[in-house]
């Protein structure tokens, strides 16, 4: 590959109207240089509670992979195949672990008041992610095509109908619920996860409550 030496270096162009340059600047500026995948963390990042965010991400990866394997086999596969049942079990238990890790992560961040220092959107996206995940898990239970699906849908319809949502989100229609489960809600969970992680990397890990400002100490 050869490169043209007379082409302007990135960022040195005067083409202020370029949408491409604006988008690139916006993307590059999302996270401080070197903070997208840093090899160092502030000294106060030294507790087991920090592990649960990463554990949640790891569990989400297993949820997506096991769900993808179930999708390959189709809706009825796991009812008639021992391998399918095992894959379904992987999916179920990875979901249980995902929620367990996420709830510990959430309450850990609450007691650390991790929304401080301009991190409110990080907290809010995490909460929306938690709610979206509940919806994803709920539609999964509705898509099982077994007794649990029948009973859960029969009960859930009353809750959703009572606030008018059931008119648009019909839990008695497993075809609709399956599409929400395998397309719409996973897309939401994935997008929110990316936004949440980018915000964490953008602002860094919240410092301890009442920590002295190191920049002020240096000046002193």
């Amino acid at each position: 590959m050869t490169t043209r030496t007379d082409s302007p270096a990135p960022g040195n162009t005067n083409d202020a109207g370029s949408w491409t340059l604006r988008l690139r600047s916006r993307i590059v500026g999302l996270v401080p240089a070197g903070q997208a995948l840093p090899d160092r963390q502030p000294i106060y990042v030294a507790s087991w509670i920090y592990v649960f965010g990463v554990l949640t991400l790891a569990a989400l990866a297993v949820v997506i992979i096991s769900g993808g394997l179930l999708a390959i086999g189709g809706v009825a596969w796991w009812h008639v195949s021992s391998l399918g049942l095992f894959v379904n079990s992987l999916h179920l238990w990875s979901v249980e672990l995902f929620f367990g890790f996420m709830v510990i992560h959430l309450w850990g961040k609450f007691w650390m008041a991790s929304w401080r220092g301009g991190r409110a959107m990080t907290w809010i996206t995490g909460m929306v992610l938690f709610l979206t995940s509940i919806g994803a898990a709920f539609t999964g239970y509705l898509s099982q095509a077994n007794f649990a699906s029948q009973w859960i849908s029969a009960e859930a319809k009353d809750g959703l109908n009572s606030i008018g949502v059931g008119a648009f989100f019909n839990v008695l229609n497993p075809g609709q619920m399956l599409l929400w489960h395998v397309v719409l809600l996973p897309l939401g969970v994935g997008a929110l996860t990316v936004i949440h992680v980018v915000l964490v990397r953008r602002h860094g890990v919240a410092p301890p409550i009442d920590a002295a400002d190191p920049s002020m100490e240096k000046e002193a």
Partner: protein
Amino acid sequence: MTTATGTKSRASTPRDKTPDSHDFPTRSYDLVKEFTIALVVVIVLTGGLAAVFSSPDEKSITMSTWANQAPNDLIATAAAELAGTSVSATYGAPYNTNSDGQKLGPLSLQKWGGVRLPVDSAGLVLGPLAAVSGDSTLSSALATWKSATADQQTKWATDYGDALSKAPDGDPTKVATGDYGPVPDMATGLLRLAKTGGLEGILTSSGNFYGGDQTQSLLLLSDGAYLEDQARARNLGGDQWGMMNETGNYPGQPWMWLYTFWYQIPPFSTSDNADAQVWGLMMLLTLLLMFVPFIPGLRSIPRLIPIHRLVWRNYYRRAARR
């Protein structure tokens, strides 16, 4: 270290003196190794739990199962659908306009959702019966039904439903003598159809080869008592923490514990508007938790209850020495 791109963390409120995390001294931290180890741990845990405990898969209830296990319940349900007294017949939105449905205070949220999934409860019986051929008794009963006035139809079905409720075990063979018109033959016809295994197919296909919407069959099934009886026997009732329980000895959806909790206590456990009230309460609590960074008092709880001192105990110890 300060950031070069101008994205230093800003204080969320004037009183928020949180320093920039990038100004603190750092230590080596291998994120990729941490994620890899976490992934291996999750894979091992998931595989172990799946191998040891598997997952629940209790077969769905078919209309044939219902007809064979609880024929009297299916007959009574058919009569209620024809009389317009079943749960779905008197439900309101999104199925019909026969009720205003639940309210959240003065707000008729259920009604405002509109009738977007219209269901005629009598149609849950008449539709499948119309597809049956070669049954002269049933054909005659349907012809009699169609030729009667709406009031007469309702009277026949209501009287038959009342008689069934008074009969021992709801046994159709033991109902008191009365003028029930063609309703007993129609209900028995539905029972016979259900036993053949063809009922749910007729209800879900709606003329389409690819039936994928079980709304009508699930409404009919849940209008009977059999489905709920089976669920309650497995501790899945609404007042048995059923919304977070699962069939078998599995954890279910423990993240739904708070939503489920409200159904166990008054006033929700005795309210006709419990679903709307619980949803309203949960929305309020969710909004409070979501916007806790902006709510004075609530956002100070972590500072007042110093669990954070455990998390950052090494940092605080070092800071105290300085």
